[in-house]
């Protein structure tokens, strides 16, 4: 992997508050990389450090292997897409897009050629003469992207660029961003607090919390194999069942769930599991099965419960089932499944079950 951007032990403190605590990351050329986390986790601070609007208190930031800490933002070969687009209101769309080219002293013909190419890239070739206040939110967004990409930066930083758009448009822009990134091959570093957006867009995601990186992984691995309770909880919906490691059985672990009994779980990769230590079984709602009849399948963990709550969402129904120990477990059933016999009602006696490889073990 060729490291385009390397962040080495970067720290940033604001008056008594640690925004970033020795963060290290390496981002490859051509990657769509996302910094994901709740507000205040330090993702925007990190983006501002990469862009150069702020200076780290410790550590180094390398681009192509060279430190860019001392380079002012205007001379870093990277551009930022701001949350509210920050288009210049007194310039036409064409002048906005031409701005970075003018700053490096391109000649007129070159500017004209590249501006019209950039506008074509974002499918708005006929808006050149318009002023930004005549554009819709989605169009402004595309112009901001055209402006940031027109002189082909090494890196594009995107700071929650879709947060101001409505849900439908956001989805459309997500697809366009993926397509655009693939076409031009520029490395994207994307900041968002929206885990769905991060999963949909990214090649890799760094989940951040309290100024540190909780996990860096591909979306599917992040979702399927979270390394901590925080990541499991933050990415998608997840049932977190507290337990204790009882016994190691090869590639399986026997875990005692408080008040429920022992269940078999797959041995998590890259983690040392010790007998007697506290752990959490993370279970995605879609991996839990609800049925009315009792199964005696050996490979399944099964518990009795009562339907406590249900949410009909059209394509799926979410059930909250109260288990015998009083714990609430969320299960998700697709309404389209062919064998879908009937809906359960609140108060129904049901059995919840999951396969031994459905859950993922996280050490506390």
């Amino acid at each position, binding site marked *: 992997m060729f490291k385009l951007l390397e962040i080495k032990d970067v720290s940033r403190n604001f008056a008594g508050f640690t925004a970033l605590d020795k963060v290290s990351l390496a981002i490859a050329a051509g990657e769509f990389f996302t910094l994901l986390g709740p507000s205040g986790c330090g993702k925007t601070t990190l983006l501002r450090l990469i*862009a150069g*609007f702020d200076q780290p208190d410790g550590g180094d930031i390398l681009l192509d292997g060279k430190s860019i800490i001392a380079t*002012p*933002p*205007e*001379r870093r070969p990277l*551009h*930022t897409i*701001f949350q*509210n687009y*920050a*288009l*210049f*209101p*007194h310039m036409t769309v064409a002048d906005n897009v031409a*701005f*970075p080219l003018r*700053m*490096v002293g391109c000649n007129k013909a070159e500017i004209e050629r590249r501006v019209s190419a950039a506008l074509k890239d974002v499918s708005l070739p006929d808006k050149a003469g318009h*002023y930004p206040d005549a554009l819709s939110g989605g169009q402004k967004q595309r112009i901001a992207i055209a*402006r*940031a990409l027109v*002189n082909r930066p090494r890196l594009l930083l995107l700071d929650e660029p879709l947060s101001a758009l409505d849900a439908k448009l956001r989805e459309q822009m997500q697809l366009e961003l993926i397509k655009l990134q693939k076409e031009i091959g520029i490395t994207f570093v994307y900041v968002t607090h929206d885990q769905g957006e991060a999963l949909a867009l990214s090649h890799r995601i760094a989940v951040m919390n309290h100024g540190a990186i909780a996990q860096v992984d591909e979306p599917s691995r992040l979702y399927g194999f979270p390394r901590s309770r925080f990541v499991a909880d933050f990415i998608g919906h997840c049932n977190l069942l507290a337990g204790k490691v009882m016994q190691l059985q090869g590639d399986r672990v026997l875990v005692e769930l408080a008040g429920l009994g022992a269940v078999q779980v797959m041995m998590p990769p890259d983690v040392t599991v010790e007998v007697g230590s506290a752990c959490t079984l993370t279970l995605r709602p879609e991996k839990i099965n609800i049925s009315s009849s009792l199964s005696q399948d050996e490979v399944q963990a099964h518990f009795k419960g009562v339907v406590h709550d249900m949410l009909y969402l059209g394509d799926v129904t979410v059930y909250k089932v109260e288990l015998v120990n009083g714990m609430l477990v969320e299960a998700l059933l697709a309404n389209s499944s062919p064998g879908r016999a009937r809906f359960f009602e609140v108060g129904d006696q049901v059995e919840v079950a999951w396969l031994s490889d459905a859950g993922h073990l996280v050490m506390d």
Partner: protein
Amino acid sequence: MISKSWQQRLLTLPPLGYLLVLFAIPTLIMLFASFRYTGEYGGLAPWYAYKDGGLTLELTLENWQRLFETDIYLRLFVKSIGYAVFTTLLCILLGYPLALMIARSPRKHRDLLLLLVILPFWSNFLVRIYAWMILLSPNGAVTQLINSIRDVFGLAPVSLMYSASAVIICLVYVHLPFMVLPLYANLEKHSSALLDAAQDLGANRWRRFWNITWPLSLPGVYAGSILVFIPVLGMFAIPDLLGGTDGVMIANVIKQQFVESRDWPFGSVLSMVLTAAAVLVVLLGAKFGRQGGR
């Protein structure tokens, strides 16, 4: 909707009436007066008379002809406009950095800084001019300082009082807040995200100012310029007190016509030309202001 527009119209009546009674009608009276004869003891002669049993109008173009008989008045107009332009430019030059500094200072300091800008208004206009008379007098602090600096370079001492420089210094001093306040109001609204974006896209400090801050602030520059230019053009108190013969402006002559010569018709002619000049400049400024703002 109908009742709303009625209310809106009703609300515009008082200011409209105010402008009509105190501006439009007096201007028309003045325009009319510029075609009348001077009275026997000054002021205005009656504009109609009964002669040979019939009513005749006593109106004339003489006053307007007098304006062009010598070039003294036109030159005075040009000179006054020159003073006003120069004062406005100096106010922009001095007021812009100040307004920008206040607009970019921490929010909690801004009110105090603005208060300091308007602090001079707390004392009387004439008192402040008299203060400048003391400062600019041959033994005054400003004159002494300037002459001691000139002395170092072997230059002869100068007198500041009763000169065009004294008038300009005081005009700038008095009108600077009128430039700073609208400029501040404009600059304060600028989003720092635009400057961040410009910097991110490769603009250094100098280019950020000339490509972003300056064009976006043009409506403020224009508003401040109007607020400075118009009163300066009609200013007579400062040249009266500080200008001597060198610093006379057109308004001094107008005042002279009305007060000392009691030649109201000619005073009216000069006033009309001054008003027309001011309106022309404002219209031109508005045109450029709009173009520049975009």
